[in-house]
C-alpha cells in the first residue's frame, strides 16, 4: 500500500535575536510536519543574503531540515538589496568576527527552540562562508559543520599579499564537531596544498573530518548562477552533505 507523506515546506523571513541581543533579519525554511528535525544554519557568501542563498535554505527544508540563514549585513543596511548591502559592508571593512559568531549562535538558538527541533544543529557555508563555518565549528556548540571551499582556513599568504583575514588553522584544536570539507581540485584558494595542510593538522589532533576534492572543479562549483558551476561536483557534493548531516544531525 502506498503511504503518502505530506510534502510541504514553509519559507519565510523572520526576526531572530543575534549578537548582543540585536534583532536581525533571517530567512527560515522548514518542513511542514511535526518532526523531529535537525537544524542547519546557512552562512551566506560575501555577495550577501541573496536569492541563491535563500534557495539553498529551501533545499535543506525540502531535504528534511529546519534551515535558517541570518542576514549578517542587516545592521549595516536594513532593507537594502543584497548587492547594495554587500557593498556597504565591504566598504566598511567587513563583518566583525564577534558579531558574526553572535549572530550564528542566535540562529542556532532559534532552530533549537522550534517545536519540531531534535536539538541537533549543523552549520554550512560557501566561499567566505566556508571559512566562517570552520570558525563557528571551533567556537560554537554545533553538531556538524560543512566548509565548502572556504579560503584562508589553512595556508600562508604569499609575502606582500594584502590579506585582511587571518588563517584559522591555529584554532583547529578547538574544533568541536565533525567537519566535512568540499573543495575543487582546480581552486587556488583554498588550493589542494592548503587542504592537505588542514587535513594533516586535523589528523594530528585526532579530529573527525572528511575532505573531498573534485577534479575539474574550481572555486564556487555549487553556484548554479555562476560560470564556475560544475554539475558533477555539485550533485555529488549535495549527496555528501545530506549523507553527512544525516549521520550527525539525526
Amino acid at each position, binding site marked *: 500500500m502506498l503511504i503518502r507523506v505530506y510534502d510541504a515546506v514553509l519559507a519565510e523571513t523572520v526576526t531572530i535575536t543575534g549578537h548582543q541581543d540585536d534583532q536581525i533579519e533571517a530567512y527560515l525554511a522548514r518542513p511542514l510536519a511535526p518532526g523531529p528535525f535537525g537544524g542547519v544554519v546557512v552562512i551566506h557568501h560575501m555577495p550577501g543574503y541573496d536569492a541563491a542563498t535563500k534557495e539553498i535554505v529551501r533545499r535543506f527544508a525540502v531535504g528534511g531540515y529546519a534551515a535558517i540563514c541570518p542576514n549578517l549585513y542587516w545592521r549595516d543596511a536594513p532593507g537594502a538589496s543584497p548587492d547594495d548591502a554587500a*557593498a*556597504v559592508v565591504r*566598504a566598511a571593512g567587513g563583518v566583525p568576527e564577534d558579531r558574526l559568531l553572535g549572530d550564528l549562535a542566535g540562529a542556532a538558538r532559534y532552530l533549537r527552540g522550534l517545536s519540531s527541533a531534535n536539538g541537533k544543529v549543523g552549520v554550512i557555508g560557501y566561499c567566505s562562508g566556508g571559512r566562517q563555518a570552520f570558525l563557528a565549528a571551533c567556537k560554537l556548540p554545533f553538531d556538524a559543520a560543512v566548509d565548502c571551499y572556504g*579560503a*584562508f582556513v589553512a595556508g600562508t599568504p604569499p609575502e606582500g599579499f594584502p590579506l*585582511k583575514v587571518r588563517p584559522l588553522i591555529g584554532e583547529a584544536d578547538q574544533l568541536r564537531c565533525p567537519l566535512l570539507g568540499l573543495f575543487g581540485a582546480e581552486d587556488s584558494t583554498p588550493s589542494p596544498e592548503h587542504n592537505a595542510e588542514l587535513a594533516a593538522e586535523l589528523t594530528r589532533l585526532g579530529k573527525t573530518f572528511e575532505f573531498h576534492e573534485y577534479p575539474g572543479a574550481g*572555486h564556487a562549483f555549487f553556484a548554479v548562477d*555562476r560560470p*564556475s558551476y560544475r554539475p558533477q561536483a555539485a550533485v555529488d557534493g549535495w549527496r555528501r552533505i545530506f549523507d553527512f548531516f544525516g549521520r550527525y544531525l539525526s
Partner: protein
Amino acid sequence: MCTYVTETVPVDGSGKGPAGWFSLRHAAVYVDHPYHAPYGHTVNIDFANPDLGPAARVAVELTEQSALALVDAIHAALAAAPPGLAAAPPGPAGGQPQA
C-alpha cells in the same frame, strides 16, 4: 577566491542611481566575485554616498581588460582637454566630496 581587499578613494562628483542623481562621496574598487557579470572575478567599482543609504550606489563590474581600457580612456580624455578644465574649483569645498 574572495580577495577581502578593497581600495577606497574619496570622490567629488555625481552619479545616477535608481532614485536619480546624487552627490558621490567615495569609490570602492576591488577585484572579486561579481554580482551580475558572467565571470568568476571582475574589477568592481562602487560609486557611493553612504550618507544617503545603501541604494545611493552606482556599481560596475568590468573584466580586467575593460577596466584597464577605461583607465586609459580617462587619461586620454583628460589629456585631450585643457589642463584643469574638469578640476574642482578652489574654495572651502573645492576638491572635497559633497554631501
